């Protein structure tokens, strides 16, 4: 990797209660690429993802040591301001969680919190993000309808648009397609691929085919450790580590 990393994780250790969830993680997430974190369930991949925007802070009994540098700034520095860090990253969770308000307000929610009040600016932002996620034509006539009325695939795209509206640099996806039907899944996957021109994207997935389709780099996590990290084709087709080989072949899951 020649370009500078967008997120740089250094000696990250995460304990929750007595469990050592992440063990001395050191990785560099490249800029403007799709990086997938793969690994069996319970290996710590979601924890790793949530450590990037400090959503882990809300977990009871959590203890975090080490550094996560985003644009060179250590987000676990006691002086770091958490809302400003989170604003840099759009999160797309396993299932869509639209906010309890209209389609329009869902997208305007973030910008309004960050001080945008003008209706024209908000209107434009909402339209822009809905177009970016391909929802505009489907919802333009019912922007004031409750977001919970949308289909689950539409809701997930709305959640993506909502995240993009705060103008993030990074998109974090936590198995974002696991609740979706195949058509919605492929729409979301295509969105990820097109969005990497502007954003760095980190995805957690347990679907190897998906990792292969969308990602440029792959991180294989097992037992709380990073086992292998490299370009997609290399890790999936020609893994260096025995554990990775076994996982890719489906011997361990």
């Amino acid at each position, binding site marked *: 990797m020649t370009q500078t990393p967008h997120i740089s994780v250094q000696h990250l250790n995460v304990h929750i209660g007595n469990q050592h969830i992440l063990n001395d993680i050191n990785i560099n997430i490249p800029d403007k690429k799709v990086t997938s974190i793969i690994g069996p369930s319970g290996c710590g991949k979601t924890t790793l993802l949530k450590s990037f925007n400090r959503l882990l802070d809300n977990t009871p009994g959590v203890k975090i040591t080490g550094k996560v540098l985003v644009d060179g700034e250590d987000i676990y520095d006691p002086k770091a301001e958490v*809302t400003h860090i989170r604003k840099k*990253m759009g999160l797309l969770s396993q299932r869509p969680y639209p906010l309890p308000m209209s389609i329009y307000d869902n997208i305007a*929610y973030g910008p309004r919190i960050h001080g945008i009040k003008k209706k024209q600016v908000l209107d434009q932002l909402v339209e822009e993000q809905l177009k970016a996620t391909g929802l505009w034509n489907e919802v333009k006539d019912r922007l004031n309808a409750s977001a919970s009325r949308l289909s689950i695939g539409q809701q997930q795209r709305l959640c993506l648009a909502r995240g993009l509206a705060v103008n993030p640099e990074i998109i974090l996806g936590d198995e974002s397609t696991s609740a979706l039907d195949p058509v919605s899944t492929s729409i979301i996957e295509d969105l990820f691929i097109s969005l990497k021109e502007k954003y760095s994207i980190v995805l957690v997935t347990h679907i190897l085919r998906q990792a292969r389709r969308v990602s440029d780099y792959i991180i294989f996590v097992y037992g709380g450790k990073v086992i292998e990290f490299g370009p997609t084709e290399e890790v999936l087709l020609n893994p260096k580590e025995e554990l990775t080989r076994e996982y890719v072949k489906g011997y361990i899951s």
Partner: protein
Amino acid sequence: MQLRILKDKILSKLMLVLTLASVSLLLIIGIGLYLHSAPIIEKSSWGTLVTSSVWKPLRGLFGFFPFIMGTLWVTGIAIIIALPLCLLTALFITEYAQGGLKRILVPFVNLLSGIPPVIFGVWGVLFIIPLIQNHIAPHFVEFSTGYSVLAGGIVLAVMIFPLIVSIVSEVLNTIPQELKDASLSLGANKWETIKKVILRKALPGIIAAVVLAVSRAFGETIAVLMVCGNNAVVPHSVFDAGYPLPALIANNYGEMLSIPLYDSALMFAALLLFIIILLFNIISRVILSRLERKLAS
């Protein structure tokens, strides 16, 4: 085999009968109250009974307006005081309190609901009355004995506090962490998330809790009766004495029944209370279902 099916059928019928019996109790009580208050309704009329402010049983004048207003004042004050406190407490318990503290707080709040009303009444007389008489009322009015609708409202607020807190906490606990995460990940802070997402999502549940608490507050008798002065006039400020319907019934039933129509008048008071609570519940159901439909559309 046959026996099993038979058992199943008998049980389901039995449950149906028991359910109907308990539901019909409502109807039976309503009819009973109406029949007993019929003499006074026939003599006077609904309109005069409900709107007249003159309460002179010895002269046969029964005006219930002061009692209706007394009930509304006391309950209104109670909910105005209790609701913000309850919301903040429930939010603190569910969103801010950490492990150990949370485990202590919840049973502690629930303990409050186990205290008998009469003890709240005594507490009101010993603590709230002097507080109002000497420290609060002098700032606003020339003279107050302390026995007032405000005292009744405060005591009542404390009594419905645990009920609202525990229901609202339950409601808040059902809001998925992922929804809060969604708001937080957009850069909202905790208070913004609470205000714009959590409370909005919990609104129907909060309203339901308030409805339940108000229904209880309408009927609360002993504690209110001990502190609100029991003077049959319409209160015009929070420092005026009031006389809620339940207090009227509890104070007088069984006594002074030699006065003509008095017995019937008290039954009419009970009927009024019954109707107020019924109407309140029906109206709030309608509002709640409208709101839920609006949130879903």
